[in-house]
């Protein structure tokens, strides 16, 4: 393959010494860059940085929505640390992440591999699997609630065909979390499926064929040809899925409202309840910061870890 290299003439050097000549150009670039970056930087400062810091400030107070505010120092954080409900809430969130993220990735990658570039009706499958992602989460969750509830579709189906009662999925502490994970996977895997599917399309057919001629089986082709080439997509999908699953809210909110007991309550639901239902902003902000630190930590670890397994030299 012939690559045309176009040589771009360097901008004419301004008069003056060589050392002084390069710097104004750089400085000018910097200034332009600043102008172009300003809208998003201002947006970031106003709508992300400022509220985040404000929340940190609020988390140090007993801050009812109306009424007297009082400085508490770190008392909100120590309350959270010693509150059995909040500990359970953190555990629930981690449990959701541990169940949801691997299952989502395995299912979406598996399907993307199975419905490969040569599969007939591939576009149709892509559209079908993406439909749950596009439909509003609240509507999806309402439909699943009708399936899961006592006397719902699953329960009445089992009674009609086998004469047995289905478990009370949304009313039992054992079943509620698996029910939420199931609904979330159905709802969410289409997005990663599309990401992986696009990445697999980029793997050159010629390399796969030559590997096959060299005697590589299906697993070996996946392990040594496809996998290294799609690692950037896997990294992207893993990071985003992890972050969004730590922030899970809509599914438990609609399906179980965090119950029974607190068995499906997640950190974001806890923040919402404390802040907007019970009007205690201080505690809500502290819980929000706990979540922020958890997500920051895990994302940072992923970025450090990616150097070992993500391959950008394709």
């Amino acid at each position, binding site marked *: 393959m012939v690559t045309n290299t176009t040589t771009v003439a360097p901008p004419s050097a301004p008069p003056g010494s060589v050392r002084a000549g390069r710097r104004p150009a750089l*400085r000018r670039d*910097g*200034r332009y860059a*600043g102008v172009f970056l300003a809208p998003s930087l*201002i947006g970031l*400062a*106003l709508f992300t940085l*400022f509220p985040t810091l404000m929340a940190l400030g609020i988390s140090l107070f007993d801050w009812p*929505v*109306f*009424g007297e505010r009082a400085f508490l120092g770190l008392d909100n954080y120590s*309350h959270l640390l010693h*509150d059995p*409900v909040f500990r359970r809430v953190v555990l629930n969130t981690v449990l959701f992440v541990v169940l949801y993220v691997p299952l989502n990735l395995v299912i979406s990658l598996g399907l993307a591999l199975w419905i490969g570039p040569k599969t007939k009706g591939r576009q149709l499958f892509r559209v079908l699997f993406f439909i749950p992602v596009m439909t509003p989460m609240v509507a999806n969750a309402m439909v699943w*609630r009708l399936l*899961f*509830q*006592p*006397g719902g579709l699953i329960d009445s189906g089992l*009674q009609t065909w086998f004469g047995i009662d289905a478990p*009370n*999925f*949304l*009313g*039992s*502490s054992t079943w*509620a979390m698996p029910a939420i994970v199931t609904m979330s996977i159905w709802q969410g895997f289409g997005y990663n499926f599309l990401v992986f599917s696009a990445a697999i399309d980029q793997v050159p057919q010629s390399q796969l064929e030559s590997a096959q001629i060299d005697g590589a089986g299906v697993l070996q082709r996946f392990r040594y040809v496809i996998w290294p080439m799609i690692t950037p997509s896997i990294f992207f999908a893993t990071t985003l899925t992890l972050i969004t699953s730590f922030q899970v809210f809509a599914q438990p909110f609609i*399906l*179980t*409202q*965090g*119950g*029974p*007991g*607190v068995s*499906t*309550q997640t950190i974001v639901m806890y923040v919402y*309840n404390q802040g*907007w*239902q*019970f*009007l*205690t902003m201080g*505690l809500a902000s502290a819980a929000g910061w706990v979540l922020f630190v958890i997500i920051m930590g895990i994302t940072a670890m992923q970025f450090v870890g990616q150097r070992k397994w993500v391959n950008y030299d394709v």
Partner: protein
Amino acid sequence: MKASPARARRWATAALSALALTAVAACGGGNDGSSGGSGSADQADLTWQFWIGGTADQAAWQKVADQAHTDHSGITVKLQGTDWNSYWAKIGTLLASGKAPCIIGMQSLRTASYASAMLPLDDLMKKYNLKAEDFDKPIMDGLKVDGKQIAIPYDSGPMVIFYNKDMFKAAGVAEPKPGWTMDDFKAAAKKLTTAGRTGLVTAPGDLSVTSWVRTQTGAEPLADGKLALTDPKFQEGFQGYSDFVHTDKIAPQVPSGNPDFETTQFTAGKAAMQLNGPWSLIDTKGKVKFKLGIAPIPAGPDGSKTYTAGSGFGISRSCKTPDAAFQAIMSMTSEKPLTTLAAAGRAYPARTAAHPTWFTAAGIDGAKETLDYASEHSVPLVTSKNWVQVADLLNRFGTQALNGEIPPDQALKTIQDQASAGS
């Protein structure tokens, strides 16, 4: 002149700080003109924040708002609607910002939580001669906090049993009448529980739980204004309520966090009875395919005892024209709009004079007899300041108790501990 990088940085910092300050100021100061209300006692443009379910709802309540203008040509009331679920978060922030609308929709169970941001209405009631005795007493009392009137009610109602007449007939069970006892109720419910159907459907909602507890043992959720769920009498009543599901098996297991479950089971004809308020009666009658009846809650050892809840309109403390707002509320809760609402079947009116119209609209035999009886045997459900949290906890741990996952006493203790820690 060229700016040095240091100077540019200073400029950028200054600009960002200015922007941030503007944003903070903007957060504090929205809605100036319309929401606070301006003008005099007879001349004002007021805003009314209320929960609205849809366009039909909007049209019905707009008529109520218009009544103020009809009665006082200088006063206009602009209706701002939000759905029930977002409503409370929204007025919480509005009241906190000190820029809340003048007129606020208030539900009796939540009055205690919001009372500190609301204007007590007792002086205005005297000044404009609004007579408390024209309204149902339990709901007037239900909208009081520390003896002060916080809102004027438009609807009210004691919790009563809705029942499916067709199911009673098919099972050969006599229909319930005022004065029926817990034993009558259980015997009927057992007979009605057959082939995938149940005699009753329960839910761990605050009004259901407290009403069933009160009729069985007379226990109240608060003692001297403090939550008292671990009181032995309350525990006994709650044990009895959860037994309906997992011991007597006259009610199905409950799913978590589905506030509509009770109503959907009943309207679908899967349960013969449910506890509900008269505000849902006409709506339920329109939905069901069977004959609907109502009866008082069955009597425990000390007779039939139930709770009343309802809603009304109050004035925010930040309102600049409380006199005009109060006159508007007087018009909005006067006989005419309440009769119109009653005729449309929307709410069981808080004004006794509008009751006959509502009973005609309902068209259910014995409804008047039952509601009069239930009203006599009811008290307002007085709540604590953190009731929203109590109700949330009751839903969570009540579900586990009803389904037999945890002992009812343990559920009540957890609710009591959690609610006390947060307040």
